[in-house]
């Protein structure tokens, strides 16, 4: 039960048409900005997964090309750009924008106009990027003007995401409720802070490289940076690991919050889990150096100094994030010994964290030269595991915090199977690509076109890869089915579903202390926090572990 009043919101009354649209377009309410991110990335997800399925279908065609050769390059670009920067990162940012100020006990987001501007910049940039790819621009595109447009549009989209990240990071650092020191910050908010700091370091490097590529392409010369392939060659690290590992960090925050809430107990050891989540952030060094950090092939024959010069960066970029992801999952899962109440967000969170751990581990393995996985589809499988981990975590976040945003809940019986279906699909889509990588099926961040068939992606259809390609296709279709069903269920549940109380999960953190749905300014009174689980302190039945 809440102790505060609901504010009258400034939202336009339902059916007010243009006024309602204007209200959403000009809003500075973090929950609305977050929901716009969630909605746009949800729709993008449907499109990007359809493209993923089409490309997977193309790979299963052993005798020829099922799709027009000229369109494969464009589809591949949509697939990479779409799933990374139109789905994965904005989904995490959208969930964070909705939830973080509520968790902090803040009445608003810091710099809400900056966050809103960031959304629109990202949205316009993403649309322009897709339009330019469709017009034969983008990586390996044949239309020079649209190649330029793609580069600039991507820069605009990334700047938009950065603006929202600055707003989020500032909120966590400056708008916490009285008494909420950094050790008392809720799990999800902590993971978002780690993501924000690391993304602020990594994304500008991608932007800088794209600017070089843009100038080189706009003013053609004999530069090594010139040519439509330069986007993939020089800026491809922004669409691959370890950069994408950073975008998946909030997955562990979703898991920790859902485990703590489901077990109705304090999740411990708090400091160790915080440190583990922060360790994953060391992957940002890999993004910042703009080149793969690898252990060279023939490692055993290298000199001592050469071994150290390989091992040290590898440990920072790959081993520490892996250790962090493992510890974050293992320590959080310890909390499940307290017999949790099984709910859909918890299952989504568990599956997402396992997928993310798989992705981080595979990223490390793929950069060991002697494994022979460089240039194969193993990288794509790794990327898919991380992208779909974020997708599942995003669904878990919507199912978990949706009642706080819409005042209605998603039915457990209908949502739980979707978590299983989504996880099955994600595993099927990603793991076969990794196995096909061991079978030397070639892959690339952006497609290679220089091997005889201009404009085509040269998939290797023969040999054992065929089976894995079929399985991957099945996986993408299952993910598509999950996404469709989840979006339909969410739309129905949050408009006509069962109304819920203010604290439907028996929660521990401040977001459950306000009304459902939360009013425009979140809280009528500013609460003083005396522990990391302020609501749990007030529930005597749950204090046995205090």
């Amino acid at each position, binding site marked *: 039960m809440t102790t505060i009043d609901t504010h009258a919101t400034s939202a336009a009354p339902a059916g007010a048409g243009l006024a309602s649209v204007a209200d959403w377009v000009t809003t500075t309410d973090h929950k609305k900005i977050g929901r716009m991110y969630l909605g746009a990335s949800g729709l993008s997800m449907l499109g990007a997964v359809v493209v993923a399925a089409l490309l997977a279908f193309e790979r299963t065609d052993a005798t020829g090309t099922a799709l027009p050769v000229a369109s494969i390059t464009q589809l591949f670009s949509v697939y990479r750009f779409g799933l990374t920067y139109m789905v994965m990162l904005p989904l995490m940012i959208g969930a964070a924008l909705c939830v973080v100020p509520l968790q902090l006990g803040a009445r608003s987001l810091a710099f809400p106009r900056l966050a809103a501007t960031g959304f629109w910049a990202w949205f316009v940039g993403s649309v322009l990027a897709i339009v330019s790819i469709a017009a034969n621009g983008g990586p390996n595109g044949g239309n020079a003007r649209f190649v330029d447009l793609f580069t600039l549009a991507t820069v605009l989209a990334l700047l938009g995401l950065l603006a929202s990240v600055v707003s989020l990071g500032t909120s966590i650092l400056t708008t916490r409720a009285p008494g909420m020191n950094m050790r008392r910050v809720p799990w999800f908010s902590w993971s978002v802070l780690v993501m924000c700091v690391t993304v602020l370091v990594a994304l500008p490097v991608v932007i800088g*490289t794209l600017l070089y590529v843009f100038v080189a392409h706009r003013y053609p010369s004999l530069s090594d940076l010139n040519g439509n392939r330069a986007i993939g060659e020089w800026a491809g690290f922004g669409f691959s690991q370890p950069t994408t590992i950073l975008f998946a960090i909030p997955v562990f925050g979703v898991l920790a919050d859902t485990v703590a809430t489901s077990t109705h107990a304090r999740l411990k050891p708090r400091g160790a889990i915080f440190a583990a989540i922060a360790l994953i952030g060391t992957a940002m060094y890999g993004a910042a150096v703009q080149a793969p950090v690898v252990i060279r092939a023939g490692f055993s024959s290298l000199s001592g100094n050469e071994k150290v010069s390989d091992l040290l960066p590898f440990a920072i970029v790959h081993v520490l994030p892996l250790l962090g992801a493992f510890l974050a999952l293992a320590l959080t899962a310890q909390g499940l010994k307290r017999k949790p109440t099984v709910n859909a967000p918890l299952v989504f969170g568990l599956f997402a964290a396992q997928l993310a751990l798989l992705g981080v581990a595979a990223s490390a393995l793929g950069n060991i030269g002697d494994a022979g996985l460089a240039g194969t589809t193993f990288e794509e499988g790794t990327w898919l595991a991380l992208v779909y981990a974020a997708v599942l975590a995003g669904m878990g976040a919507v199912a978990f915090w949706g009642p706080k945003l819409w005042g209605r809940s998603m039915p457990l019986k209908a949502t739980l199977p979707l978590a299983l279906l989504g996880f099955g699909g994600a595993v099927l889509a990603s793991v076969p690509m990794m196995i096909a990588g061991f079978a030397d099926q070639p892959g690339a961040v952006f497609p290679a076109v220089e091997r005889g068939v201009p404009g085509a992606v040269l998939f290797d259809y023969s040999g054992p890869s065929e089976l894995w390609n079929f399985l991957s296709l099945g996986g993408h279709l299952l993910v598509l089915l999950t996404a469709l069903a989840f979006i339909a269920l969410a739309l129905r549940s949050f408009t006509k579903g069962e109304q819920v109380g203010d604290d439907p999960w028996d929660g521990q953190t401040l977001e459950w202390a306000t009304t459902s749905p939360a009013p425009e300014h979140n809280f009528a009174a500013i609460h003083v926090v005396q522990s990391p689980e302020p609501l749990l302190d007030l529930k005597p039945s749950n204090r046995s572990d205090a």
Partner: protein
Amino acid sequence: MLALPSAPAPAPRRQVLVGTALVVAAAASLVGGMTALFLRFRSVAIDNGELWVPKDVKFSMVGANVMWITLLPLCIFAQWAVYAAKRGDRAHTGVALGLSGLMALAFINAQAFIYATTKMPVNLGTYSVMFYALTGVVLLLAIVGLGFTIAAAFRYLGGRTSDREVVSAHALYWYAFATVFTVVWFVVYVTK
């Protein structure tokens, strides 16, 4: 009934300063990444025995050094503004911010002078592409800084004298800019 203790709304915790620090970190990462790639290409060119700076390209080192030198007084003026604002001295704050803006203008002017006197086409090769992209981004950051100076001056002189945090954030921006530009100046103009 769950009743959390409540408190009056806390005083703002230096939002503008923290936000500026995050933006500055991103800007440093942007320029740092671009400088690193510049160094990588330069290293490859030198290893291959090629000329990195095209033969006929001559820079005005006067212009480059003027740019660097303007940043020293700019930082001093920005800190003067903070000092004066803390003491509620509107006149000194206004003069300090005005001089900061003037130095920023001098910086932008010096960069334009270098572009005008070098007369290097953008499409000359890798060097020219990277030179214009890198210095163009730095120039853009200087223009953003000038905008920040103008905004800080208008806010403070417009009567928001208790709003000292913006003046502090403004100083932080220019300190960071001076540091970042020093690296770029050394790499692009001094060691070439």
